[in-house]
């Protein structure tokens, strides 16, 4: 190795160092520590006591674990489907050539810039059963709206509906993908007599399938980590009737309110594995429908 190489290598490592240190301290260490604590009785205040797989065994018989896992899966499924459909539709609409396109794009992107806490408080008011904008609108249509967040049969769906609020981020990514689709393909399809939907399903979607795959995987991960909306809007108990008790909310209660950090660590690891398996499954499935043109 020449001296220039070794200098470059040293400089390269030095430039990477801040990131490596950050990764080690804030990601790798907590990950491994959590794995160890998940095998312990750990109250944070006292030194951890090793108890083997007891925490994991307790999880299986914990109804709240299953309830919160179900709620989260429901939310993730709902928000992934709804978020993808809405953001893809918006991107398709905004990919057309109409006047003032820049303004529309900005308007649809704006809500996703709002911090999630502020957004949650805003939705809290919109969902107000008596004077919320949604129920006021419904009243004008002659419909008595539900008490959204106070009604166990509506609360979870109400939080899923909020996912459209953050569709702007995915929309921008889809837009970029759409603009990458070669016009020659559309021209060829038109010459072959393809209509709008044929072009959509046979040209557009296959061409942006890698982008869809990317967004879906990110949404699954984000969906399983849902916390803030429920914490702000329905409180840490996941009211009403625990219909909004999401997995991470339950984990927070167990870890930070009950000080059962070992149990909470076990929950965190289970969630990690669930997300890992789902991402892996999505990747496996993607081989069937994702097309890379290179």
């Amino acid at each position: 190795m020449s001296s220039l190489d070794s200098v470059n290598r040293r400089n390269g490592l030095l430039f990477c160092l801040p990131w490596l240190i950050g990764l080690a301290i804030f990601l790798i260490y907590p990950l491994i520590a959590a794995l160890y604590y998940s095998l312990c009785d750990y109250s944070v205040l006292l030194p951890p006591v090793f108890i083997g797989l007891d925490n994991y065994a307790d999880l299986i018989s914990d109804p709240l674990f299953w309830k919160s896992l179900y709620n989260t899966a429901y939310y993730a499924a709902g928000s992934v489907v709804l978020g993808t459909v809405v953001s893809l539709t918006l991107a398709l609409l905004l990919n057309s050539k109409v006047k003032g396109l820049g303004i529309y794009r900005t308007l649809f992107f704006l809500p996703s810039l709002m911090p999630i806490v502020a957004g949650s408080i805003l939705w809290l008011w919109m969902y107000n059963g008596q004077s919320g904008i949604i129920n006021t609108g419904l009243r004008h249509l002659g419909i008595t709206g539900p008490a959204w967040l106070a009604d166990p049969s509506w609360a979870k769906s109400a939080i899923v509906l909020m996912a459209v609020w953050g569709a702007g981020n995915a929309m921008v990514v889809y837009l970029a993908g759409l603009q990458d689709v070669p016009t020659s393909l559309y021209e060829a399809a038109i010459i072959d007599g393809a209509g709008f939907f044929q072009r959509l399903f046979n040209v557009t979607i296959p061409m942006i399938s890698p982008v869809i795959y990317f967004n879906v995987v990110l949404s699954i991960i984000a969906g399983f980590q849902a916390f803030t909306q429920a914490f702000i809007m329905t409180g840490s108990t996941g009211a009403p009737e625990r219909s909004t008790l999401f997995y991470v909310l339950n984990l927070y209660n167990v870890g930070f309110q009950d000080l059962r950090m070992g149990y909470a660590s076990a929950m965190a690891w289970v969630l990690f594995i669930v997300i890992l398996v789902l991402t892996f499954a999505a990747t496996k499935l993607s081989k069937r429908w994702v097309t890379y043109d290179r």
Partner: protein
Amino acid sequence: MNGRQTRGRRPPAGAVARVTATLSLAVLVGCSGAENKQAPRHITYWEKWTGFEGEAMDAVIDDFNAGEVARAKADSSYAPIEVEKVTISNVEQKLLIAIAGGNPPDLAGNYSFYVAAYADGGALMDLGPMLAKAGFDRSAYIEHYLKLGEYRNKTWAVPIVPASIALLTNKRLFREAGLDPEHPPTTIEELDAFAAKLTKWEVTLPNGEKSIQVGYLPGVPDQKKRLIQAGFLPGEPGWWSYGWGYFFGGNLVDGPDKITAADPANVAAFDWVASFSKNLGIGVTKRFRSGFGNFASPQNAFLSGKVAMVLQGVWMHNFIEKYAPGLEWGAAPFPYPAAHPELALTTSADADVLIIPKDSPHPEEAFAFIEYVLQPKVLEKLCLGQQKFTPLKTVSEEFWRVHPNPYIRLFRELGMSKNAFSIPQTGIWNEYNRELGNAVDLIQNLTQPPAVVLKEVQTKMQAALDRNRRILARRDAK
């Protein structure tokens, strides 16, 4: 949501006053510096209150610090203690993190209902030996409040500012309903009858006209009626929903090892709670409640006259002064079931406490401050400033004379009652409280009958308590 946290949300403390006080103290210390070469012993105190409650504590700390400076001036070998107050939101959580991280404050204020969980976690210093050494006289304090700081045969905390709750009534609405405003309900049956008379609806008649009607209207469909005033709602504000059973003679625990959520008296209490959902309608109540503003605002359900009677605490006086100064209100002991006159004067009685965290850097100095605060004169000053009563058995005439709350004697009488109850001292209270919160949801939504819900709570929480006991036993064995 935990009601006490809501209650704690107050406007920011008078920062200017603090700075001025600190500066004047610095000047005082500076003046005495010439004779006394001892460096002051600085201790940090974590406080949970802002607003007028925080200012009342500031005044006590300033007095203490000034006294220490004076003492150091007189005795050149004495190093004065200097207490610095730091206001911390959600102190009960941040304190734990600080203790776990090995960097706790010297001293902290907390709520009595966290004592057991903190003690189980080994987060607190046992104050017993220091109190004994200081010749602490238990008999001077109201027994109930002292016990809040005791758990597993040790004294982990001392009560400084107690509280109790009562039935608050809106006298104007009583008059409008043809009730005697000076005669609040004394029994649950009377409360039910009054509540019906105080319930008002706007009803859409078949001809499209609107009319105001009073009472429960089971015959009118939900779409044709709009609730405009409720006599009483068990869920407003719902801060003591876990405790309805106590008003009917129930209890949530029996000793440290037994959960008694499904006690027949608890079931009776929650049957009563459910009766309001049945009388008013679930959807109707929810829509009505969602129109209420924040607790600390003029749109508060009681302050704005939307609910005529509420279960509320001694502090409500301050909120009335601030947000509804013209409100004609009264306070009375919460009613008891007519068949159980022995349950008169039932109240929830919890307290603000002082604790010394485990590994406090200056426990002796921290205790010196506790000892100072526990003096009757100082306690009176603090409790008067916070507009509550004191945990002492004897109170000076002056205290009663200057106290702004017209019902302060009633609240104290309630606090001293043999029927005063508190959040059970169990290390699993957070978990139990969440489970009960969910139970109240199920009961008020009429999803399941109270007997079924409470039975399930009992089974689950007994298992949780047994688990907790096993963990503690394992820790003790180590």
